[in-house]
């Protein structure tokens, strides 16, 4: 039976014997097995070079595994075409990056609205959803600001709004607080927890044990392998 996207308890993300080898023979992932259930909040911890970012990009369908099975939101990603994967990312997955990746020439609202560009939704609808998302991250007063007028924490909130505006089932965050001071990092983290608590699956990468501590489940990685998986 194939679990359906959005069903509670079913695996939102599933890796079976996943190997990722880069040209030159470097193995970034060595037979990784992991299940992340719908609505789960998971921190992936490990030193740099441990393969955690590689795992995230494979979960996010930005890269393909060299071998093994990958299921994302109930879909077999290994056999899917480029456009199927793009559809998955457009509708099911919200990314949050360390470097924000906001477009300086656009207002916060348009940056968020642009996050739904490839869903094919008309611009008016995208803007409405963007406004709701900016409300949810507490930036209702920054709608027409451009990124250079925002603080680091605010920028990351815009990026989070962009990730959640389309109501994805999966949120993937790669060191989202890495460029922030501890205070705004803390509040961004709280925001992510709060949004995930509303039902989305959250997987966050960090090398910071203190951040990982706030998650109910922590996966530890080293040298391309999972070396620990504790739940509270």
């Amino acid at each position, binding site marked *: 039976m194939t679990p359906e996207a959005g069903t509670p308890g079913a695996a939102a993300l599933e890796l079976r014997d996943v190997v990722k080898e880069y040209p030159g023979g470097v193995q970034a992932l060595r037979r990784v097995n992991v299940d992340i259930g719908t609505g789960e909040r998971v921190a992936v911890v490990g030193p740099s070079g441990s393969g955690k970012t590689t795992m995230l990009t494979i979960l996010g369908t930005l890269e393909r595994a060299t071998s093994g099975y990958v299921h994302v939101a109930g879909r077999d990603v290994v056999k899917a075409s480029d*456009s199927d994967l793009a559809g998955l990312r457009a509708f099911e997955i919200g990314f949050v990056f360390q470097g924000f990746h906001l477009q300086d020439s656009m207002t916060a609202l348009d940056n968020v609205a642009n996050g739904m560009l490839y869903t094919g939704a008309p611009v008016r609808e995208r803007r409405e959803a963007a406004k709701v998302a900016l409300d949810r991250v507490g930036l209702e007063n920054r709608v027409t600001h451009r990124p250079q007028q925002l603080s680091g924490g605010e920028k990351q909130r815009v990026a989070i709004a962009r990730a959640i505006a389309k109501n994805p089932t999966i949120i993937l965050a790669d060191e989202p607080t890495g460029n922030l001071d501890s205070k705004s990092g803390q509040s961004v983290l709280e925001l992510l927890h709060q949004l995930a608590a509303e039902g989305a699956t959250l997987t966050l990468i960090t090398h910071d044990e203190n951040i990982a501590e706030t998650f109910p489940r922590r996966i530890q990685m080293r040298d391309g392998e999972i070396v620990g998986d504790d739940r509270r």
Partner: protein
Amino acid sequence: MSVAALRRPGGMPHRRRGGGRDVARLPPHELLGVALQGLRTRKLRAALSALGIAIGIGAMVAVVGVSASSQANLLATIDALGTNLLTVTPGTTFFGQNEVLPNTAVPMIRAMKNVQRVSAVYSVPNANVFRTQFVPSEETGGIGVDATDPELVKAMNGSVAAGHFFDAASENEPEVVLGAAAAQDLQIEHVGGHVQLFVGGTWFTVIGILNSMTLDTTLDDNVFIGLPVAERLFQVQNSPSEIYVRANVNDVSSVSNLLAATADPQNADGVDVSQPSDVLEARAAAKGQFTTLLLGLGAVALLVGAIGIANIMVISVLERRGEIGLRRALGATRRHISSQFLAESALLAVLGGIVGLAFGAIATWVYSVAQNEPWVVPLYALIAAPAAGFVIGAVAGLYPAAKAARLSPTEALRAT
């Protein structure tokens, strides 16, 4: 109630969920918006790279426009002079000897139906033209002497720059009218007073100077005397060297068909009939051909512009790796990315083409005003200029677009 509905305030209503498959889309108008946005964020760069195309297309439009304007001017002149003039000249025999038109040719043609006006010139073979009798006889200045009748200027739709042409009374007198080029060579600008020329050993009074005869500019090099005078003084044979015939506008071809037989019923094959306006129109068309070389130069400018765009787009792809990675993360397919860069490149060149069209049209306008010619920009240029821009931009964008699409999204995201 599903969990999805609970946690989704303000979800996207049109979205299909569950069993349906969600497909990433980028409708054409959104693609155009993305491309415009890309250009808007780098305005100066976009303007400079479009300028290359604008200059190339501007040069080509100007070349085409200037030549079209000159042609239009020439054709307008021809139309003003009338396309109903026919000329009759003696041909050459099979053995290369010159035929001679019979002295009955002019009265016969004059008697034809649908003929408005007839005039003829008769060359005066041994007469040369000098300002004084002291000029050595070898220095003829290449000026010929033609005997003619008072109808010549009217038949040619010519005009008199100074003085007047012969009339029935003066054609018997030793009086001379100068062609435009001949007057220039002789440095005579005014008539009246007693300007005289030494023609074939006799003093002739200059009574008029003609403007250039566009329909037969060979006449400009000659001076004209009355046929009766010529017969009396120089024993000119009454055999015309050229007959000019104005036919009714609607009967030009029927008159033309009958002219040879009328001029010389015994030897119609020895008569050449032509229509000078046709010759001039052909010459105008040939003048257009001459612009091919200049168009080639414009094409080189375009090639340089295209390389400029390709270069800028490649740099742009490298600089915007972060943006490309983000777009892929947001659901763009490789095809979406390549079409975005292709669209930017094409849009850039189309804008260049439109600006170039304006440049070229303005250059043509300046030229036409300066030359006092009609302003003509060929209609096809209005479509061809932006279309050429589009094609150039699309071709120039192919490599950068493919490069952008090939970029691994993870590497792209790591770049910034």
